[in-house]
């Protein structure tokens, strides 16, 4: 067995090297966050004291805390609405016969392949018509439901144990009660995946807030960051620190909820 053992070690070493190279830019993010100015970007040294200074400045003055707050509101708002509304619709599509079900399902499937960029202009006009430019609802409501979310929950709800739902009906429980008490607990993994993916998507959404939020007071992190880059009193290191702070919540969520993250990403790509 010796040759295959050597092969295994070799393979492990090679793979580790490849992954290390992939992580180099991630480390560069940490290094850049402690850079003093633009001429100091090329090194991989880390100056903890200067990084601390940058953090204090970032949170102590300027609009960064505001952007952070706005991003939390936006991401949480969208994720919660998604779970409630897409969850309800996905379950209904899978388990309940109601008028218009086929039409709704066709719309969901049709929308799956439409990208936001295609409807950017008219979606902006709809939001303007509603008087929602420069408001949180203008940023949140257009993402309150998604075809992906409805589809994800529906796929999952199709495999709910029929006997369980049936016996609840025989016991005389109402349909809404069955949904809340029997289905929702069973759908929790799918709902958690949906919450995670939508939170991350909004945390990183630049295009839509850029279009509907003109007031800096409403800017979430992506728009705020893109503006910091051009502000004259923001050094490269300070922008790097802002980027690093922005990257921490998604990375933490990804590691804690890795299972749900992978489940969401691989939906549809892998034969069940």
């Amino acid at each position, binding site marked *: 067995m010796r040759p295959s053992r050597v092969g295994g070690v070799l393979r492990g070493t090679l793979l580790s090297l490849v992954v290390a190279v992939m992580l180099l830019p991630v480390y560069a993010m940490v290094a850049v966050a402690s850079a003093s100015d633009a001429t100091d970007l090329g090194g991989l040294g880390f100056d903890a004291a200067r990084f601390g200074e940058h953090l204090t400045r970032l949170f102590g003055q300027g609009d960064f805390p505001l952007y952070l707050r706005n991003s939390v509101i936006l991401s949480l708002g969208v994720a919660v609405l998604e779970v409630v509304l897409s969850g309800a619709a996905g379950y209904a599509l899978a*388990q309940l016969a109601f008028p218009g079900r086929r039409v709704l399902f066709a719309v969901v499937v049709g929308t799956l392949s439409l990208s936001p960029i295609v409807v950017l202009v008219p979606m*902006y006009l709809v939001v303007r018509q509603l008087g929602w430019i420069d408001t949180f609802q203008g940023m949140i409501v257009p993402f309150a439901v998604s075809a992906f979310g409805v589809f994800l929950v529906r796929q999952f709800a199709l495999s709910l144990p029929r006997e369980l739902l049936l016996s609840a009906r025989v016991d005389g429980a109402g349909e809404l009660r069955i949904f809340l008490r029997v289905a929702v607990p069973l759908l929790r993994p799918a709902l958690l995946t949906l919450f995670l993916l939508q939170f991350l998507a909004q945390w990183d959404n630049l295009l839509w807030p850029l279009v509907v939020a003109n007031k800096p007071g409403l800017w979430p992190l992506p728009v705020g960051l893109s503006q910091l880059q051009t502000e004259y009193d923001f050094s490269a290191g300070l922008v790097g620190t802002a980027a690093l702070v922005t990257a921490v919540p998604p990375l933490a969520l990804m590691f804690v909820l890795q299972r749900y993250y992978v489940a969401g990403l691989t939906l549809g790509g892998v034969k069940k």
Partner: protein
Amino acid sequence: MTLTVRLAGPATTVSGRGQRWAEARAGSLLALPAAVYFLLFWVVPFAGAVWLSFTDYELAGVPAWTGLDNYRRLLGDPGFWNSAQVTALYTLASVVPSIVLALAIAVPLSRPGRLNGVLRALVMVPAAMPLVATSMVWSAIFADEGLANTLIGLVGGGPLPWLTDERLALWALVIMTTWKHLGLFVIILTAGLQGLPSGVFEAAAIDGAGPLRIFARITLPLLRRTLLFVLVIAVIGAMQSFVPAFLLTKGGPAGATEVLPLYLWATGFGFERMGYASAIAMVLLLAMLALSLVQFGVLRGGEDG
């Protein structure tokens, strides 16, 4: 897209009409918010986009029907052709290497083992980082005194003007994009590989087939469905990519990185020409649909996956 479209049979009825009524009521109630949402934010906007693409509409005025004028103008618009070319090159150059690389990493990484488990978590890190924050870091990496030039200096090369040279800027974006999405593709392919029946591989190994032969004759064909999925999301993702070009180069220098979504955004929200921007959106949509269909045709060909 790649998912099977199938409606479940009507839910099991318990007591005929009363149950049917209860279901219809609960179902309508649960689905109503989503139905209103899709109508207001997708059906109406989509119909609007189609209609606006046949009008002349500046944000301050009212849409005026101009028939095919916008599309005719697109054909003679050098800015549009430049963007179409940039998008095509960007898509091709970022999709092909990232899928080949992802496959090369996923095959050994899908084997069991503790080290591989750790590496699988680490490989996802770039993909899990926010694209906006990532773009800021890469603009520092590609800066004149940045890490990219430091590394080139180590092997004796001169510094390169990554983001300010017309021929280089798009390649800088391609490098960043490939790096950003590689982990995602690796994870999807790894999940696909782990789902393959191990018996076939054992049988092939017993028959004396070498690893390359096994890869070409067994792994690749069995992995078709997963590969198709990765290919479609990679192509669609690259074609609608906006953030890297917006943050790293603003479409410059001299339009060298002005991808179609950026051109669309600038036309609609920079110059407020909503009708013309909608025509660009329609062309982008048709191109994405056509490419998806071609990919289905090519990779599905003869086999149901």
